[in-house]
């Protein structure tokens, strides 16, 4: 079992990791960040991106409810991964990782993030 700071430093050991940030989705606050130049702006933006994805997919899903495991966005310069971690007492905590596409392996990164999130929050 790990804490918030360890969770970030472990995420940064994933091959190809460029930066990582933990975001409180409800308020869009940067909880902790590593290698991110403007954590507050990044947190707000990532939180909005996640919200838009949730809303959009909820509308396009036949059963109307949606539970996102990971959001994967590939851009011309990076892979962006957003993984929500549900907590019992507040809206999800998002762990967001930016990866160098030259060095990263997406499948491996997803597995590692999954493992980290399970050790951070058990519920």
């Amino acid at each position, binding site marked *: *079992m790990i804490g918030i700071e360890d969770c970030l430093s472990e995420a940064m050991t994933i091959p190809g990791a460029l930066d990582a940030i933990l975001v409180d989705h409800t*308020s869009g*606050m940067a*909880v902790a960040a590593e290698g991110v130049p403007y954590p507050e702006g990044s947190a707000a933006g990532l939180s909005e991106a996640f919200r838009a994805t949730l809303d959009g997919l909820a509308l396009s899903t036949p059963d109307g409810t949606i539970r996102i495991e990971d959001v994967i966005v590939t851009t011309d310069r990076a892979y962006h991964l957003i993984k929500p971690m549900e907590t*019992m*007492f507040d809206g999800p905590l998002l762990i967001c990782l930016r990866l160098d596409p030259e060095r990263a392996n997406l499948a491996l990164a997803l597995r590692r993030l999954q493992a980290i999130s399970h050790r951070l929050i058990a519920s």
Partner: protein
Amino acid sequence: MATSTLDSVLAGLAQDKATGSLRVGRNGTIFLTRGRVSYAECTGTPNVEELLTASGRISANAVRKARQVVSADPDPVNGGDLLVGKGVLTRGELEFCVLGATLDASFFLLDTALDTTGARPGPRSRFRDGERHWLGTHWFFDVPGLFRECRRRKARLDRAWPSTELDTQPVIPVRRIPGRHVVLTAVQWEVLLGADTTATPAELARRLGRPAYSTLLAVRELGAAGLLATRVEPAAPSPPTLPRRGDRSGPRAELRPGSGQDAAEPYLPQVSADPTDVNLLIRLRDALEALQ
């Protein structure tokens, strides 16, 4: 000390790298560890124990036992570590919960200090040197950072729905939705399900085991979506008669123009002196000037 404002008291304690508890009137307590805020609780928001137990994460019994151990021990043991050590909670959950409860309480405790007009005097505060919270220290905020975050949260709330009208009123969902289809977040769902037409957002938060801020945000979002009964219409040109709250004859609540999908009249944005709007205009002007 009695005349100084809460932010100056906190800034002073931060500068002195003080450790102890600052009681803010009757509203709550802010705990500091070496000049940084490590925990806060407010009478209007659920505290860590309530968040953990009301949400069903851990039993009230586990909390009580840990508390007893801490108070019985002559050496100050750390209640949080005890819970993590027993495996009832992960370190990440404990930290996130402490962080969440602290921000939540601070948002309401620092409310008067955030009011930059200085019209309202803050409540008296009293500092007790060396007093710690039984859970121990698990997360820190520096004092300016905490104020910054509270201000940001306030702006976030106003972006969702720029009226404080719904904040302290009982939450009353409309009987028919202003459309055929709505998308709800998990907290919004819980709020609608928990709303019994008498509970205010703060009471709902406690009942649901959700932070008061998250609940308030959900309530304002529901208000903006036209899903809650409201008494006045913020941007409306004085409607002649408004159906009263709980009026049986009118199942439809007042809706903000433009919030419904097929609103006939064009919706004009409200004019505000919000600094973010002003900043945007300044940036826009600078960008236009740079183009020339």
